[in-house]
C-alpha cells in the first residue's frame, strides 16, 4: 500500500533579500508560513511546485516542505523548517522580530 502523503507547502528564498518565502493560494510569496497554501494532494503539490519554479524572477530554489494543519494555518513538521520560519536563535535578526508571540 502506498504511504500516506504528508501535506506540503511550497517554500523558497526571495531573490533579492534571500528571505524565506511561502507560496500562497493566490500565487503570492508570503514571508509567513501561516499564509501558505497547504497542499494535501500529492499531484496538486507537484503541480504547484512546477508553477512556483516558473516564478524565477522573484524567488530562488523552490521546494516542497512537509507541513501540517494548525489553528493559524500550516505549521512546520521538521525542526529545519521551524528555524527557516523564524530566523536564527542567537540574534533577533530574522522573522522572529515580526513574530513576538512565538
Amino acid at each position, binding site marked *: 500500500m502506498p504511504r500516506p502523503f504528508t501535506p506540503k507547502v511550497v517554500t523558497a528564498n526571495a531573490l533579492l533579500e*534571500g528571505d524565506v518565502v511561502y507560496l500562497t493560494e493566490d500565487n503570492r510569496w508570503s514571508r509567513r508560513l501561516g499564509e501558505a497554501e497547504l497542499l494535501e494532494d500529492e499531484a496538486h503539490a507537484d503541480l504547484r511546485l512546477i508553477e512556483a519554479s516558473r516564478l524565477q524572477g522573484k524567488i530562488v530554489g523552490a521546494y516542497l516542505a512537509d507541513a501540517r494543519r494548525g489553528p493559524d494555518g500550516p505549521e512546520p513538521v521538521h525542526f529545519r523548517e521551524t528555524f527557516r520560519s523564524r530566523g536564527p536563535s542567537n540574534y533577533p535578526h530574522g522573522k522572529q522580530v515580526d513574530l513576538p508571540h512565538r
Partner: protein
Amino acid sequence: MYRYDDFDSAFLAARNAQFRAQVTRRIDGSLTEDEFKPLRLMNGLYLQLHAYMLRVAIPYGSIDGVKMRKLAEIAERWDKGYGHFTTRQNIQFNWPKLQDVPDILDALAEVGMHAIQTSGNTIRNVTSDHFAGAAADEIADPRPYAELIRQWSTDHPEFQFLPRKFKVAVTGSPNDRAVTRAHDIGLRMIERDGQPGFEVIVGGGLGRTPLIGKVIRDFLPEAELLPYLEAVLHVYNRWGRRDNKYKARIKVTVHEAGLDTIRAEVEETFRRTRIEWPNGHAAALEQIRERFRTPDFVAGGAEAFEVAKADPVFRAWADTNLAEHRHPDYAIVTVSLKAHGATPGDATADQMRVLADLAERYGHDELRISHQQNVILPHVRKADLAIVHAMLLKAGLGTANVGLASDIIACPGMDYCALATARSIPVATELAKRIDALRIEHEVGPVQIKISGCINACGHHHVGHIGILGLDRAGVENYQITLGGDATETAAIGERAGPGFAYDEIVPAIERLLLAYLEEREGPTETFLQTYARVGLAPFKAALYGPEKQRDAA
C-alpha cells in the same frame, strides 16, 4: 602587509564590473538561477537558510587597520552591524541583499580585498599560522609563501574546475598552529643543511571522511615550491574522482591510489613543471618579501608589564591571552571573540573599529584572524599591554579564556547554514555560560572544544580534544561526542565516545566530561589530552553514560 599593485587592482576592478553586470542580468530576468549560481559562487556569494551570505577572503588571516575598518563599514552599511570570523580565517556577512553585493565588492576593492575563490572547486584562501611573523618558535615568516601561492592560484586557468575544492595551509613553525595535517596540502617549514624548505603533507582533511595528511615529500627546497605544488595539482586534476562528489577530494585520491603511487606520479610530473619554470619564482618571492617587512621593534618597557600584573583581572588575562613574541619586549595578544554566552567568532562593527585602532596605535598596524575564530594583535609592546587590555575590556573584548574550555570553535550550524543538520551556536553559547557559572575553566586548563553542525566539519570537531557533531536523527537534533582529537603537529582524529545526546542533554554531558577529567588527572599539570592519552576512553564513557553494568541493564 602585502599591498596590491596596479595589476591586482585592475584585475579586481574588471572582475567586480563583470559581476555587477551579472547581478543586473539576474535581477532583470536575463539569467536563470541555474546560470547565475556558479557566477555568484565564484564571487563568494552563497544563499543560506535565511539570507545570502558573502564570504570575504582574508588571505592567510592577515589584515590591517584600514581593512578591518572597511569590514566594520560593510557590516554597518549593508549588513546587521556585525561579521562572523570563520575557521578558514575569513569573514562572513550573514545578511547582504543581492542588489547590494556589487557595491560591497567595490567597497572591499578600495582596500584590496575580495571574495574570489572563497567558494567553488578552486584553490581556496591559503591559511596560515595566526602568529606568523611574531612567534618565538618560527623558522621564517610563512606569509610571503602564502602570498606567492595566492598569486599563483588566483584565477589560474587550469585550476578553476578542479574535481573539488582545494585548501592549502602553510606554517613557518615546527609547532603547528595552522592545522596543516587537515588540509589538502599542508606545508610545514623546516631547515636542512641551513637551507629553508618545506615538509609537504598531502591528503589531509576533515568532513565526512576525516584523514590525517601524509608526508609526500620530506624536504622541498623553497625555490621549488610552486613547480612542485603545480605538479600535485596536475596529478589531482587528472586522478581526482569527478564521478562522486563525496570521493572527489585529494585525500580520497591518495587513500585509494596509495601514497607511493601518487608520489611517483607527482615526481614524474614535477620533472616537467620544473622545466616550465626555468627561473623559478625567486624574483617574485623577493618582491613579495619586501612587502612583509618586520616592524621596527622598540626595545625596553617590559617592566611596566610586571607592574601591571598586580591587577588580578589583568593578570588572569595575561596568563591566558598572551603568547611569547620573538622580541623579548613584545607579546602576542589574542583577543577572545568568545565572551561567555556570545556567538563564537562574531564581532560588531564597533568592536572591529576598536581592534583597528589598537592595531594602528599599539600593534604596528597588524591584525590576524585565527582558525580558532579569535583576533590576534601580533606585535604589542609589553609596555602597552595594560592600556590595550583596558581598551579591550571597555569594548567587551577582554575575556580571559584563550585556550580554555569556553574558547569554543563553532560553525554557524543550522542557525544560518543551508547544509547544517543541527544547531551549533546555541550549544557553544550555553556550554560557555555553564562553564563560566561553574567557575571551573581555569582549573580545567587547556582544552579545545570544537562543534560542527554537520559532517562537513567546518567546526573542526574531529580534531577537538572534545569534539561535538550535530546530526539529524529521525527529525531530532542529536549530538555525537568524540574525544582525543588533536589539531597540532601531533594531529589525530578523535574517537567516538558512544551514542549521541539530545539537544538539552549535550551541555550537561560535556560538564560531566570536564568533571571526570578533574577526577582522573594526576595533577594540575596533566592536561585533558594527556589524561585521555593515559587513561583512555573508559572513565569518560562512564561519566557520559553511567557505570558499565547499569548500561548493560538499560
